[in-house]
């Protein structure tokens, strides 16, 4: 047994006594916010390595912040994806649509039309700009805050709302909590409530694509809080071991419900820096810079498609609103944080960029916002014809027992009969489905 250190203050104690570090966010409710400690890098200053580079060459980028849009609202540097104005306007339209959709669905929840909703305000670029950099048949394994991917891929708003309302039009037959979408047609994997489970699944899909000599790649999204799950470690390990054609998007929006990113390890290093330890290419990108997000995702997609292997992208952003309709962020963080966030708002930044290019103006923007709101309103009305949650217009009882297995085993046949019997007891006169 080793000797105790000399001169210990108390017999049998280390000097100083050990103390447990419990992370504490910088600002709590009521605090004035000062984000000057966040290093906002100069747009265009970050090098863009060759897509075929060794993963270790990306190490400096994992501690940096790739930015394209400068204070002058123009694109700068080697990461400028040089998108044409039509593509930029399309991206801006997707942004506006998601924002209009979020606003209306949030209100719908408050009006009691559904049980639950989650907005992605402030994080629109991390899904929409990223998705636009992928092929439409690249498989995405999202978490619950990437509704922007569905919008970017042209998924029907009515189908989305049917799912949120769990009505008789809901393709998922009312089985899933609102926003847990699934659309095989749009190469959008079924969302699970269990965090980070999608990350090894995305790696497995990518491995399968490689086994089959396909050209499609996989991309997954996970919040910074969920990177603490064991699945994320497994995903990174498998992705590296098999050089899987996969992109691991970590959306670092600073908050996991009420826990700030320090509880996922952010006080010590960046999330992108973890890539280095696995031998995966890593990029840390301004998640509120739509051009930088697009460029990073395209870099990673090209790399994966060329058998260059996986990339981990940390999207540095801010969750501008509550975690969900069940959450009140004023209970744990300063209300000033959102307005003081130094990387601004992705929608506003893209809008100002297009205006600076002479390709957009305030009037067109206002008209677009209005048109999106109208389109969402019309879709809501259409979806409501199929019912809202708890008003009886749901799928028939027997559907509850379908798809547990490919075929109904005897015990589910018996239980299905019981459910239908109970319905007849409750509604002896019958009731329209």
């Amino acid at each position, binding site marked *: 047994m080793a000797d105790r250190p000399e001169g210990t203050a108390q017999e049998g104690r280390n000097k100083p006594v050990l103390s447990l570090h419990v992370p504490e966010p910088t600002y709590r409710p009521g605090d004035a916010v000062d984000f000057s400690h966040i290093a906002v890098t100069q747009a265009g200053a970050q090098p863009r390595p060759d897509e075929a580079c060794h993963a270790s060459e990306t190490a400096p980028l994992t501690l940096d912040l790739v930015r394209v849009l400068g204070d002058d609202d123009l694109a700068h540097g080697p990461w400028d994806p040089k998108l044409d104005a039509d593509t930029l306007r399309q991206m801006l339209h997707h942004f506006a649509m998601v924002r209009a959709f979020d606003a209306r669905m949030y209100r719908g929840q408050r009006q009691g039309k559904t049980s639950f909703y989650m907005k992605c305000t402030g994080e629109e670029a991390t899904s929409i700009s990223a998705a636009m950099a992928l092929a439409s048949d690249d*498989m995405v*394994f999202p978490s619950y805050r990437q509704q922007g991917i569905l919008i970017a891929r042209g998924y029907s708003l009515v189908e989305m709302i049917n799912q949120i309302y769990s009505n008789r039009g809901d*393709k*998922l*037959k009312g*089985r*899933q909590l609102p926003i*847990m979408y*699934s*659309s*095989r047609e749009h190469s959008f*994997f*079924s969302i*699970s*409530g*269990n965090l980070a*489970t999608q*990350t*090894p*699944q*995305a*790696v*497995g*899909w*990518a*491995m*399968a*694509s*490689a*086994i*089959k000599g396909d050209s499609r790649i*996989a991309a997954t999204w996970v919040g910074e809080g969920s990177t603490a799950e*064991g*699945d994320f*470690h*497994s*995903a990174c*390990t*498998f992705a590296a*071991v098999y050089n899987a054609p996969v992109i691991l998007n970590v959306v670092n929006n600073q908050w996991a419900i009420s826990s700030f990113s320090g509880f996922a390890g952010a006080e010590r290093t960046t999330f992108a820096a973890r890539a280095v330890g696995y031998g995966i290419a890593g990029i840390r990108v301004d998640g509120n810079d739509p051009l930088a997000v697009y460029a990073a995702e395209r870099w990673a997609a090209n790399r994966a498609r060329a058998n260059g292997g996986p990339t981990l992208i940390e999207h540095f952003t801010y969750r501008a609103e509550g975690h969900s309709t069940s959450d009140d962020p004023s209970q744990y963080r300063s209300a000033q944080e959102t307005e003081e966030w130094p990387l601004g708002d992705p929608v506003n930044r893209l809008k100002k960029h297009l205006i600076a290019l002479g390709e957009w103006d305030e009037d067109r923007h206002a008209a677009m916002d209005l048109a999106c709101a109208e389109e969402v309103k019309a879709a809501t009305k259409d979806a409501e014809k199929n019912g809202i949650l708890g008003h009886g217009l749901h799928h028939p009882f027997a559907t509850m027992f379908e*798809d*547990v*297995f*490919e075929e109904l*085993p*005897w*015990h589910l046949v018996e239980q299905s009969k019981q459910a239908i019997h109970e319905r007849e007891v409750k509604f002896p006169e019958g009731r329209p489905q």
Partner: protein
Amino acid sequence: MSVQEASSRDPVVTEDTRRLNMIEAINEALDIMLARDPGVVIMGEDVGYFGGVFRATAGLQEKHGKTRVFDTPISECGIIGVAVGMGAYGLRPVPEIQFADYIYPGLDQLISEAARLRYRSAGEYIAPMTVRSPFGGGIFGGQTHSQSPEAIFAHVAGLKTVIPSTPHDAKGLLIAAIEDNDPVIFFEPKRIYNGPFSGYYDKPVEPWKKHRDSQVPEGYYKIPLGKARIVQEGEAMTVLTYGTMVHVAEAVCAAKGVDAEILDLRTLVPLDIQAIEKSVRKTGRCLIVHEATRTAGFGAELSALVTERCFYHLEAPVDRVTGFDTPYPHSLEWAYFPGPVRIGEAIDKLLKD
């Protein structure tokens, strides 16, 4: 070869049957499925070059290539999670978990993902995977090489649980499991990989080559999931069991001269309720035997089902012989194992009532 209902004691012997042990039968099933279906991939710890710690995948990588049969990192949650993703792509993965005792890190992926994928996506995505894993005790495996966790999986809606007890069944059930479009937990009783175990641990083990059910047909054949096997017909009582305990129960009944009807359930979910009802209504007595711990074990489900569905035919309370409610001990293995004494006394009590 057509489907084997295998309900008689007679060995199925044809020109193209050979005697195999259970490992060889499993290896052959995997080999056949790799050849038949280009979507089948086998992965797990040590399954590739080395051929598996129990040799179940020996020779398969060399024959079918490294992208069909490959080693994985030591990560059960990764193995199962990756298999779910492969299934979503359209492959038919057959991951191996080296011991059932080590399946727990993969439970979230199995329970929250594989089991629910078809349901939650309304059939858009499925997880047509077969998780193979050696299970059960009787080998001085101590706490973490002996467990029988089948009740955990039987409790999960969306999973099928299969446990063979003979080389013949192991091959036919494994082929059926791999072809099944639902996720299947395929537990292989490692105590009987090389020969059936009577439970009389102080007697020499009989190798499979002397056993009637080691006659394994060449080539492709399936044994349907959800069908029990009547190991022996009888009138005095029904014994419901599976895995290693099929052979223990059979040996004890033979030693005691009890005219028991022994049902090897083979599949726990979906369960062959018709075979169970038919037998218990005939015999009026039911003994349930499994190695797993007692409380909330699968025997409790069987006991409840028999009581609910055969109550007026029962002449005695349904009884369970199981492992004790302790972790699986090392030195006291034979005091823990539900062996001939425990089964024998239960039989006596059941016949007396």
